[in-house]
């Protein structure tokens, strides 16, 4: 008390070593913050380097456009100077010079492939003309047109003009089924070539169907687990957790075994006389296979969040409603269901996020019409080698997933995520 009496109210409180108490506290808490951050820093750096940077770099590939522009410098210069003008003799001269160099550098194939993305069937035009470009004499326009009249086409020049830019949105345009027309503007691709919009819609619809099925199957099970006495519930919980812990490939394999036309499900149906032997159900390599297998795989991700919410709902509310005269249906609809909404949201978003980006199961059981956008990305990465288009599709998928992730965070909070 002696100190308090001698303390002058105008003077700030000080620590023993004479520092104002306020700044000493601020310093201590700043140090605590730095200490906490230093603990997290190594992992943060690790994840940024091995995860965030590679993905960012991959996304930048979707706008980088050097496959054509780096190998055709003279033509690029002509486009810079003349813009959208019709190709004149100088343009053809630049083209012939570039073709000759690209043949010498063995890059003609790359250049042709780049234009082939825009106009199918033009790769050979580049490779065959490049082979003879060295011997061309002026006037180049006539010489090139004599080599192949295809060089005079307006849409080819439009495609080359857009491929000459260092950065492009072409691949995003391609990813939404638009291509460059003869006038250099984007137009919607012909009906038969529109695959990506359809694929995005299919991915969305299948994910909605799978999420809805998971909810339909997961809700009763989660409810049963939540209301049963704990020792029974934990036994039944094993039936949910075992699939969760089992390898994805194992589960997909077993669905392939079950669903194939000579498989167990068809055999049982034939034995029961529900299906004739000559008329076995086609449940695999189509959408049915994808839906069944993915519902099974994602079901635990719906049951676990629902269960953790339902466990906290006091049964007294339902009993109170019943005693006030509500029927059991009204009790469920007006009292119980509203309390489970946060669990439905958490499980639903989680299932949907996982379904939208799914790759393995659709690739194995999906066949032609049960594949999703991820499979198309893999196709462009491994087979068609149109990496820029793969990157454009990937960035669109990533944007969708990040929006959902943000919604999940707002609704549930990432730190409330639980496993098992």
């Amino acid at each position, binding site marked *: 008390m002696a100190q308090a009496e001698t303390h002058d109210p105008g003077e700030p409180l000080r620590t023993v070593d004479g520092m104002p108490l306020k700044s000493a506290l601020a310093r201590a808490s700043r140090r605590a913050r730095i200490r906490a*951050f230093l*603990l997290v820093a190594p*992992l943060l750096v690790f994840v940024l380097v091995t995860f965030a940077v590679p993905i960012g770099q991959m996304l930048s590939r979707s706008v980088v456009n050097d496959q054509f522009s780096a190998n055709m410098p003279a033509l690029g210069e002509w486009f810079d100077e003349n813009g959208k003008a019709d190709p004149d003799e100088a343009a053809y001269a630049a083209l012939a010079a570039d073709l000759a160099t690209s043949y010498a550098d063995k890059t003609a194939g790359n250049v042709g492939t780049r234009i082939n993305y825009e106009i199918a069937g033009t790769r050979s035009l580049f490779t065959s003309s490049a082979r003879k470009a060295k011997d061309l004499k002026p006037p180049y326009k006539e010489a090139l047109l004599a080599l192949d009249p295809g060089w005079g086409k307006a849409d080819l020049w439009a495609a080359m003009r857009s491929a000459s830019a260092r950065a492009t949105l072409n691949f995003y345009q391609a990813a939404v089924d638009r291509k460059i027309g003869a006038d250099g503007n984007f137009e919607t691709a012909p009906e038969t070539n529109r695959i990506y919009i359809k694929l995005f819609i299919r991915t969305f619809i299948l994910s909605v169907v799978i999420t809805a099925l998971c909810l339909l199957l997961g809700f009763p099970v989660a409810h049963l687990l939540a209301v049963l006495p704990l020792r029974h519930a934990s036994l039944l919980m094993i039936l949910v957790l075992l699939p969760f*812990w089992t390898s994805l490939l*194992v589960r997909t*394999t*077993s669905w392939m075994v079950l669903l194939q036309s000579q498989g167990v499900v068809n055999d049982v149906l034939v034995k029961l006389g529900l299906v004739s032997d000559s008329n076995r159900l086609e449940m695999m390599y189509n959408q049915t296979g994808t839906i069944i297998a993915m519902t099974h795989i994602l079901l*635990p991700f719906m049951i676990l969040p629902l269960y953790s919410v339902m466990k906290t709902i006091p049964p007294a509310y339902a009993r109170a409603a019943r005693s006030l005269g509500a029927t059991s249906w009204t009790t469920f609809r007006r009292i119980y269901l509203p309390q489970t909404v946060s669990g439905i949201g958490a499980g639903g978003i989680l299932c949907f996020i996982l379904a939208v980006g799914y790759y393995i199961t659709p690739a194995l059981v999906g066949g032609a019409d049960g594949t999703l956008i991820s499979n198309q990305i893999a196709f462009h990465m491994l087979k068609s080698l149109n990496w820029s288009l793969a990157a454009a599709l990937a960035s669109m998928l990533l944007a969708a997933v990040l929006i959902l992730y943000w919604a999940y*965070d707002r609704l549930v909070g990432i730190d409330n995520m639980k496993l098992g």
Partner: protein
Amino acid sequence: MALPVYASPLERVWYYTYRVICALIFIFLIAPILIIIPLSFNADPYFTFTRAMLHFDPAGYSLRWYDNLLTFGMTLPGALRDGAWWSDVWHNAQWVQAAKNSVIIGFFATILATVLGTIAALGLSRPEMPYRKLIMAILISPMIVPIIITATGLFFFYSDIGLSGTYFGVILAHATLGIPFVIITVTATLMGFDRSLVRAAQNLGAGPATTFFKVQLPLITPGVVSGALFAFVTSFDEVVVVLFIGSHAQQTIPRQMWNGIREQISPSILAVATILVAFSIVLLTVVELLRRRSERLRGVTPS
């Protein structure tokens, strides 16, 4: 949830219907996993129950697909089964090589993910941690971002820096994928951790290291171990990243299965699947025991 005495007949009917529906859903969940176990003992190369199997005729069952796992890829599969034969298995059998690769990659990825993840979780669970939510969101994102996007990104990144086709590259990638699981389980354990224990230890003169190893770590060990198991399973089950960045030398079990399923699905796959199911049953048991131990340590009585 016992049926109340005042239940109407309709409610009684619904009560039992509901149980039947739930039983069917449980069957849907578990049957696909259990059905492959008997099928893997099929004596014939079919994926369905043969007549002999249904009559429990011993001739309908065999271990040939398990044997095939050992002999596939060997130089002399028909030789006498002595020491040399087993050495041949160890060095040449493809599934054995795949298992070795899976264990090596899984082990180092788990160590890396667990050590980094646990330290970070300690920081994240401190109340004074700045930008907690944002950093948490970044650290969890490898679990949320579609695997194909991660694999594509790593494919370009690793070819640029010369890590593709190396064990080190695959280990780094798998560690990244396992980190969210470690973070989630360890922060969940730390939520229930009594911070005053740390202050008490410091009060009694323990330094930060002693406090961590003698007070904090023993209490959070169950969470750390289940996080590590999650990370290991993630690596052990991962195929897409290995397909994109691994070379033939990094053939793991899932990749071998993937090839087997895509090319010519043979009952050998079912034998592998059965072994993996047994493995996951063991893991599930361990995690469950750990969870109970953690609750006991923290004084939480199971409700």
